[in-house]
């Protein structure tokens, strides 16, 4: 197999010029007048460019959409069971005469496949939570999807946790973070007595206090195999917390808890990979987790206290309804990437002047990685020695893998990457109606103002820019009727969706230049074959949390 791969790489590389020509293809593809035959031609071309990405780690690809410029060997690393080359080629041959039109029900079934809604239970109508509920959804572009999402209610403390995780170089790390991070946060938030109680229960074999109530879509799975390993690491963490406690019970600071939890989990991921596991499956798993990476954007909502902890380039956006009913967006997180001056500054300060030019190249960390903070990615954290040692003593799969062996260029003063989050605090006000957490797949395609407006109008059922008021104007019934009819016909796909996140994805993928959903475009986007989809969009994961303005208002009045 290796031979075959090596053989093919130069062949693909030779089509490099074609690839750069083909880059504008996406914009052409969506030109409404395009015909089927043309489509298949473009499609064929696009296939080439897809291969291009896989075979060359060339830094000369200017606008690569991939967050992580991959190394050829890497493909097998992240999907060990598949023969990547045969897979893509087989697809390519089969695809030529394909038709692209999906019916609206087909479109809906794709869009809704991963949607999930949770309503905070009402107790006889008296909802004491500041959260009404949330809608979430994700649309894969990678196969399998590398994004993850999590939502859970803290049972031993108040508050709800929600997060989106964008994986790269495979889904192992984002999967692990989505399973584990909330436990680390919840434990960090627990008072000393509760930690003791849990530890004593473990010690004496009694039933444990539940810490989290998960709200999961059936497709959101947890790894059974690693569960014991993860538990042990978590237990070590709380044991340390217990030991560190000086006895005086102090108020737990949420911000600190979030930062500690992020750092601790990343540390555990790194340690587990260094230590290894006697079970060969687990051993391979912890290595995959450590060598792949994930960003995380997590919100903790407790009453009117909203904390957002962000690592990487997912984003948290608050939807605020102004007094005149219009919507405005308040960003509650900073992207950790090359567009963020402060991050660039940080990186330069953390490394010697001699590296000033190499630490960020082509807007990527060491010319490779788009997000400047992430979980996992030990290639950017460990020393070269450590990397080599782990790989050598690791399983054969790892040893054979060229990607893992590949050391980033200009790698002088690791670590280059951290999982430490930036935490933002916001005190909720009655006008704060919802929070959108989403991976960069969404923010790349839509402006934040549009995101907030679309969700806001969806949630309030007001699909128009402004409510009409007669005021002091002279308006006849006929004029008003005409106006209203016009507004109604404009009303698009809103009623098709029962889920705000689905509605947003529909817009993100299907919006035309006028900002309305174009079914034809939507259908084309969704019928892209797996290996092509990633060219036109990234995985999109969205959580829309809706706040209960009455409860928030009541909090406000209490003070």
């Amino acid at each position, binding site marked *: 197999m290796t031979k075959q791969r090596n053989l093919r790489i130069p062949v693909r590389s030779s089509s490099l010029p074609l690839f750069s020509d083909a880059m504008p293809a996406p914009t052409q593809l969506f030109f409404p007048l395009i015909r089927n035959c043309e489509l298949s031609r473009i499609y064929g071309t696009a296939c080439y460019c897809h291969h291009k990405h896989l075979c060359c780690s060339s830094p000369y690809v200017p606008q690569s959409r991939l967050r992580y410029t991959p190394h050829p060997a890497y493909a097998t690393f992240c999907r060990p069971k598949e023969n990547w080359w045969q897979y893509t080629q087989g697809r390519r041959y089969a695809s030529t005469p394909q038709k692209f039109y999906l019916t609206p029900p087909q479109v809906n079934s794709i869009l809704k496949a991963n949607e999930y809604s949770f309503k905070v239970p*009402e107790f*006889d*109508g*008296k*909802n004491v939570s500041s959260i009404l509920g949330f809608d979430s959804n994700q649309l894969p572009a990678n196969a399998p999807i590398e994004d993850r999402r999590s939502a859970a209610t803290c049972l031993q403390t108040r508050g709800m946790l929600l997060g989106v995780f964008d994986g790269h170089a495979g889904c192992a790390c984002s999967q692990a973070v989505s399973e584990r991070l909330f436990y680390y946060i919840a434990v960090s938030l627990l008072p000393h007595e509760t930690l003791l109680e849990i530890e004593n229960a473990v010690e004496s074999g009694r039933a444990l206090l539940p810490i989290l109530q998960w709200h999961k879509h059936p497709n959101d799975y947890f790894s059974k195999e690693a569960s014991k390993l993860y538990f042990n690491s978590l237990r070590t963490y709380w044991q340390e917390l217990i030991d560190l406690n000086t006895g005086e019970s102090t108020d737990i600071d949420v911000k600190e808890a979030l930062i500690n939890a992020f750092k601790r989990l990343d540390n555990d991921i790194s340690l587990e990979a260094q230590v290894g596991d006697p079970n060969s499956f687990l051993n391979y798993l912890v290595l995959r987790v450590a060598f792949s990476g994930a960003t995380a954007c997590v919100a903790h909502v407790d009453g009117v206290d909203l904390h957002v902890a962000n690592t990487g380039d997912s984003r948290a956006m608050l939807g605020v309804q102004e007094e005149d009913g219009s919507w405005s967006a308040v960003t509650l997180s900073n992207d950790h990437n090359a567009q963020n001056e402060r991050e660039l500054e940080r990186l330069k300060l953390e490394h010697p002047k001699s590296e000033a030019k190499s630490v960020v190249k082509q807007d990527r960390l060491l010319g490779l990685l788009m997000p400047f903070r992430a979980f996992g990615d030990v290639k950017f954290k460990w020393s070269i020695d450590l990397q080599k040692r782990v790989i050598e003593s690791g399983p054969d799969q790892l040893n054979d893998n060229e990607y893992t062996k590949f050391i980033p260029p200009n790698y002088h003063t690791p670590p280059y990457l951290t999982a430490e989050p930036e935490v933002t605090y916001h005190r909720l006000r*009655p006008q704060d109606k919802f929070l959108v957490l989403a991976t960069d797949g969404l923010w790349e395609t839509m402006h934040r103002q549009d995101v907030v407006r679309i969700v806001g109008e969806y949630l309030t059922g*007001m699909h*128009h820019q402004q*409510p*009409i*008021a*007669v005021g002091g104007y*002279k*308006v*006849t*019934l*006929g004029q*008003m*009727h005409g106006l*209203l*009819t016009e*507004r*109604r016909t404009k009303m698009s796909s809103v009623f098709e969706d029962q889920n705000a996140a689905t509605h947003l994805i529909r817009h993100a993928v299907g919006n035309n230049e006028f900002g309305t959903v174009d079914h034809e475009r939507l259908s084309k986007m969704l019928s892209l074959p797996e290996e092509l989809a990633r060219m036109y969009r990234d995985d999109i994961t969205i959580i829309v949390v809706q706040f209960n*303005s*009455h409860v928030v*208002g009541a909090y406000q009045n209490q003070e």
Partner: protein
Amino acid sequence: VMFYRLLSIVGRQRASPGWQNWSSARNSASAAEARSMALPTQAQVVICGGGIMGTSVAYHLSKMGWKDIVLLEQGRLAAGSTRFCAGILSTARHLTIEQKMADYSNKLYHQLEQETGIQTGYTRTGSIFLAQTQDRLISLKRINSRLNVIGIPSEIISPKKVAELHHLLNVHDLVGAMHVPEDAVVSSADVALALASAASQNGVQIYDRTSVLHVMVKKGQVTGVETDKGQIECQYFVNCAGQWAYELGLSSEEPVSIPLHACEHFYLLTRPLETPLQSSTPTIVDADGRIYIRNWQGGILSGGFEKNPKPIFTEGKNQLEIQNLQEDWDHFEPLLSSLLRRMPELETLEIMKLVNCPETFTPDMRCIMGESPAVQGYFVLAGMNSAGLSFGGGAGKYLAEWMVHGYPSENVWELDLKRFGALQSSRTFLRHRVMEVMPLMYDLKVPRWDFQTGRQLRTSPLYDRLDAQGARWMEKHGFERPKYFVPPDKDLLALEQSKTFYKPDWFDIVESEVKCCKEAVCVIDMSSFTKFEITSTGDQALEVLQYLFSNDLDVPVGHIVHTGMLNEGGGYENDCSIARLNKRSFFMISPTDQQVHCWAWLKKHMPKDSNLLLEDVTWKYTALNLIGPRAVDVLSELSYAPMTPDHFPSLFCKEMSVGYANGIRVMSMTHTGEPGFMLYIPIEYALHVYNEVMSVGQKYGIRNAGYYALRSLRIEKFFAFWGQDINNLTTPLECGRESRVKLEKGMDFIGRDALLLQKQNGVYKRLTMFILDDHDTDLDLWPWWGEPIYRNGQYVGKTTSSAYSYSLERHVCLGFVHNFSEDTGEEQVVTADFINRGEYEIDIAGYRFQAKAKLYPVASLFTQKRRKDDMELSDLHGK
């Protein structure tokens, strides 16, 4: 003092007529602020709410001689919904009691100006109800028939006549209409002020800007109210707080559930037409278009009940929401379209305002009045379903009568607070239900309509089993009950298409279920019945029951007695079956919706400190009704016990084993007059017993059946049902149940005197069974209930229920026959002779069908001939 103040308010309002003055009421009321009057420390009655309901109750109480009354209003008088009400008084209602209330209100408001000197803007405009479809016209015709017999003039008119009455109307899509000429428009705020002023003259003290914080209760009795201005001791409290009544009810020391919920309601005001519309222009109700239109200040006022209502105040009074009540034009768009379709010429009319005034709705679209089952002296009048103005006068009168005389002069069970329990009080339930109720205001009301929201609250443990076998469900008091079972090979119409006044699509299905009940055996899940157990250490249980019930309950253990729980007037407060389980313990089975009412009645009349134990065991038992000649075979096979009439006579109760399950209460009655048994099964055995019954029953041809089959079987045998046919103004003598009354059982019981008197004097109405003669089941309109009965061409009463009898192959109606004097209209004694010697007709939506009247059931339906092949050797044994 108060009176003059009110007059000054009203006087000022008169000065500037029109929309503007509605808001000027704010200013005028501030005049009163100057007077800081201290609240009295005690009163007989405290009424909370200065809207049309509160003022009407105060007005009527004071008229009836009660003087020590305080009325409290949190804001200003006649603010709230009363101020924003569209001011349409309409008598065309679906329930007779509602028609009567509206009729009384109409007459009251008509003379109010004369009585009080306060202008109310009362104008008799008449109203026209349009029909765009034949079904709507049938619905109107039914109302028309009923209005006429209670003396409210109305007629069905042609579209052409409609156009003559209202020149702006587009009538091309109409099939007909109903004209009610005496309906009126009136300013509801002014009516409330006039009522308040009259009450004030009669001594009622009125305080505005006074909020009731909570109601104080001691030992289940109102003792006073706590307001933001101090406490008032009182014996009676009346909650007329409109859309806040729910919250106020919960803020009592003993919470009172008043299930109602507000929805936003929109109507449009326009500037005057070029030729201003005359103030006598009739009001239009276009229910198919979901709108009403009345003349208003030369222009129009038009609102409606949209399909997608916006519930509001779910979490209670909320200043934010009150302030945010905005005009929502997009929401109003369908109604505006409908208006312009109906009156195309209005296109050029200028808009003045879109008013958003929340209205209150109840879970069953009927208003709520009466005394709380939990707190004596706590009365409620609220939940008007946007007909507050129409009902205000009549409802206030009935409630005042209730307080003064113990009960209104009319039966108001349909509106009684006690028809609800705490189970209807969930905010989530109310929010969901009112979203269905509000559009229903203008939906077609067809027989056997079931609410679709707020369902599956109470279910039997067999629910899933039955549902999987094709059960279709109806709901009573939150409990799911099977209507019938759709066989796997059969499809029924979709919900909307199944609405009909004619033969329904389930006719054949129910026929086969009835047939199976008659020839083999059927099982009906009847778990919803209210079940109480009354136990004592000594003889107290028997003594109390003997006093509360008219039949003799001192029967041997194991006997079942059908009996009524009567009031002082001899009327049925409840109709039930009581089994004597042992010497000191009784098992009482009542209709489903009696759960709250019966409990309250028993609690009220039971000695307080006795060692009587009253327990609601409704939830403990699943009830299966095994109906049919083969029921006996199924049961004996399952219990290895002889079940023949000799061993198990009719109306007998025994605890026995059925299958593996022990302790099943088996009763030889079926509520239908058919042979069979009721099984009261502790719920954990329900599935087992059901499975056993079904598997053993297979060879006897057993099948599931539902309430529609039961209803057909019951009505054809003249079994009257409480709540439908009989109520608290019906005595046993009036429905042929002399045998269920033991006047000489050796002790007094409630209602005995009234019955003795009635026995002596004769009855003034008589429940009669009618068999429709010339009625074509396939083609003619089906009877429902409430159809006028004519005897020799004279109106004598109305039907109370009806069903198709598959055995008689005729429709059977039950109904009361009165004997109105031809000269004075006074009620006279009804004798058997009077009934037998009449020629009868039943009026179904204006079509009269001949009917045979019967005072006793058709005997042939009861004969249980044993077939030859049923005979066995044991029949030859000596007993």
